[in-house]
C-alpha cells in the first residue's frame, strides 16, 4: 500500500470515529478526531465539512466558515460546504449575531483574565441566553461561578455545557471537582444534592428544596401585585382602622368627661349663687318684717332701720357711696338687732373707709375739691377715727381758699392723732 492510500485509510478511520462521536454529541472528542483525520488527508472533504458543522454548533462560526471555505477551495464541485455557506449567508443577521457574541465572549475572557469576574459573568450570561449552544461561554461562565463561590450556578453551567458536548472533559472534571469539594468542605449530602440535582427536589423528600429560579410571567406579576394590594387593604381594615377607631373613641370620651366636669362645676357655681341670693333675700325679708313690726315705733327708730336697710341694699348692689351715706345716717342705739349693722360696720372699718378716701383722692388730683371733700366726709362718717381723711379734707378747704376751716382740720389731726404720720404734715401746713 502506497503512502497516499495509507494516509487516506488512516484519515478515513479518524473520520469514522469523529462521525460516531458526533452522532453521540461527544463533540470535543469528535473535533479532535476530525482534526487528526485532516492531518492525514487535507482533502478529506467530509471530515472538514463535519468539523465545520461542529464548530458551527458550538458557536464558533468563524472557525466553521474557515473550514467550509477551505473545503470548497480544495473541492470546488459536489461539496456540501457550498450548501452550508449558502445557508449561513441566506439567513439575515445570523453572521452579525454570532459575530457580536464572539466579540462579547472575547471581552468577557479578557475581563476574567484581568480579574474582573463580576462584569465577565454578566457578559457571559447575556451570551449564553442569546446563543445557547456557545460551548466555551458556558464553560467560562461555569469556571467564573466556581471562582466566586456560586457553586449551584457553576454546576448548572457545566451541565449546560455537557448537554451541548456530552464528553467535554473540562465540564466533567469541574463537576467532579464540585462534588468532591462540597463533600469535603461541607460534608453535607443534602447540600451537595441541592447543588447537583436542583430540579429533582420534588422527587426526593430528603433533599432540601433549593430556591428555584422562576421565570415570572406577566400574569404572575399582576397576581402578586393584586395579592399585595389585598393584604394592604386587609391590614388597614383589620389593624389600622380598629386602632384608630379606639383612639378616636378614647378622645371623644375624654372630651365628654371634660364637658361633664365643666357642667358640674357650672351647676355648683349657679347653686352657690342661688344660695347667696336666697340669703340676701332672706335678710331683706327679715328687715322688711322687722320694719313692719316697728311701724308703730317712733320716727327716729324707723328712720334708722330704713337707713340700715337701704345701706344693705346699696352694699349688695355694689354702690359703696350710697351704702356709706345710709350707714352714716343709721343710729345703732335705735336698732335692737345689730347683726346687719355690725356686718356693715366691719366692712367700713376694715376696707370701706379706705376705698372712700381713695375715691376722694382721685377727685382731688383732678382739682374737683368739692367732690373730693364729699368722699372724705363719707369716709370720716363711716369711720370717724380717720386722721388721713380729716387731713385731706383740710387740704380741700385750703385749696378752696378757706384757710380757717383748713386749719381746724389740721389742728384736729394734730391734737387727736399726734403720733400719726399725717400729724407732722398737718403741723407743717399750720406752720409749726
Amino acid at each position, binding site marked *: 500500500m502506497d503512502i497516499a492510500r495509507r494516509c487516506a485509510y488512516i484519515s478515513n478511520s479518524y473520520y469514522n470515529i469523529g462521525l460516531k462521536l458526533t452522532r453521540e454529541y461527544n463533540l470535543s472528542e469528535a473535533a479532535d478526531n476530525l482534526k487528526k483525520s485532516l492531518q492525514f488527508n*487535507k482533502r478529506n472533504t467530509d471530515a472538514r465539512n463535519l468539523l465545520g458543522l461542529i464548530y458551527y454548533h458550538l458557536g464558533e462560526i468563524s472557525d466553521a466558515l*474557515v473550514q467550509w471555505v477551505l473545503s470548497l477551495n480544495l473541492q470546488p464541485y459536489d461539496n456540501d460546504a457550498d450548501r452550508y455557506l449558502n445557508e449561513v449567508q441566506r439567513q439575515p443577521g445570523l453572521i452579525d449575531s454570532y459575530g457580536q457574541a464572539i466579540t462579547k465572549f472575547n471581552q468577557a*475572557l*479578557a475581563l476574567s483574565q484581568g480579574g474582573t469576574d463580576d462584569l465577565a459573568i454578566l457578559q457571559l450570561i447575556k451570551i449564553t441566553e442569546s446563543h445557547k449552544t456557545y460551548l466555551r461561554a458556558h464553560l467560562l461562565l461555569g*469556571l467564573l461561578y466556581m471562582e466566586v463561590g456560586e457553586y449551584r450556578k457553576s454546576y448548572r453551567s457545566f451541565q449546560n455545557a455537557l448537554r451541548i458536548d456530552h464528553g467535554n472533559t473540562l465540564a466533567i472534571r469541574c463537576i467532579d471537582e464540585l462534588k468532591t469539594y462540597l463533600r469535603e468542605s461541607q460534608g453535607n449530602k443534602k447540600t451537595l444534592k441541592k447543588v447537583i440535582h436542583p430540579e429533582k427536589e420534588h422527587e426526593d423528600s430528603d433533599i432540601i428544596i433549593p430556591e428555584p429560579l422562576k421565570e415570572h410571567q406577566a400574569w404572575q406579576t399582576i397576581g402578586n401585585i393584586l395579592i399585595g394590594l389585598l393584604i394592604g387593604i386587609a391590614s388597614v381594615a383589620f389593624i389600622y382602622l380598629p386602632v384608630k377607631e379606639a383612639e378616636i373613641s378614647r378622645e371623644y370620651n375624654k372630651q365628654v368627661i371634660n364637658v361633664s366636669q365643666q357642667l358640674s362645676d357650672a351647676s355648683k357655681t349657679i347653686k352657690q349663687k342661688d344660695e347667696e341670693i336666697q340669703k340676701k333675700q332672706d335678710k331683706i325679708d327679715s328687715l322688711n318684717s322687722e320694719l313692719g313690726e316697728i311701724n308703730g315705733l317712733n320716727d327716729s327708730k324707723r328712720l334708722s332701720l330704713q337707713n340700715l336697710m337701704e345701706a344693705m341694699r346699696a352694699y349688695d348692689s355694689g354702690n359703696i357711696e350710697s351704702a356709706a351715706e345710709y350707714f352714716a345716717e343709721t343710729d345703732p342705739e335705735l336698732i335692737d338687732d345689730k347683726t346687719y349693722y355690725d356686718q356693715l360696720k366691719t366692712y367700713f372699718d376694715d376696707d370701706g373707709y379706705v376705698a372712700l378716701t381713695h375715691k376722694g383722692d382721685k377727685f382731688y388730683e383732678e382739682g374737683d375739691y368739692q367732690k373730693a371733700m364729699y368722699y372724705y366726709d363719707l369716709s370720716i362718717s363711716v369711720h370717724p377715727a380717720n386722721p388721713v381723711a380729716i387731713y385731706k379734707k383740710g387740704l380741700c378747704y385750703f385749696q378752696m381758699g378757706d384757710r380757717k376751716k383748713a386749719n381746724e382740720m389740721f389742728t384736729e389731726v394734730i391734737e387727736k392723732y399726734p403720733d400719726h404720720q399725717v400729724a407732722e404734715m398737718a403741723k407743717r401746713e399750720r406752720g409749726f
Partner: protein
Amino acid sequence: MINFDEEIKNFKPSLEISKVEDAIVHSDITDVQDIMLEMLKKASKE
C-alpha cells in the same frame, strides 16, 4: 483541584468574523501525505 487561573489561560479568544479571511489565507493545511512526499523528494535527490 481545578486551578482557575490555569484553566482560564487555556481559553483562547474565539476567531472574530473580521479575521476569517486572514485565517483562511494563513491556514496551514499541510497534511502527513504532503510531509511524506516532501521527505521522499528530498531522499530521492540525495
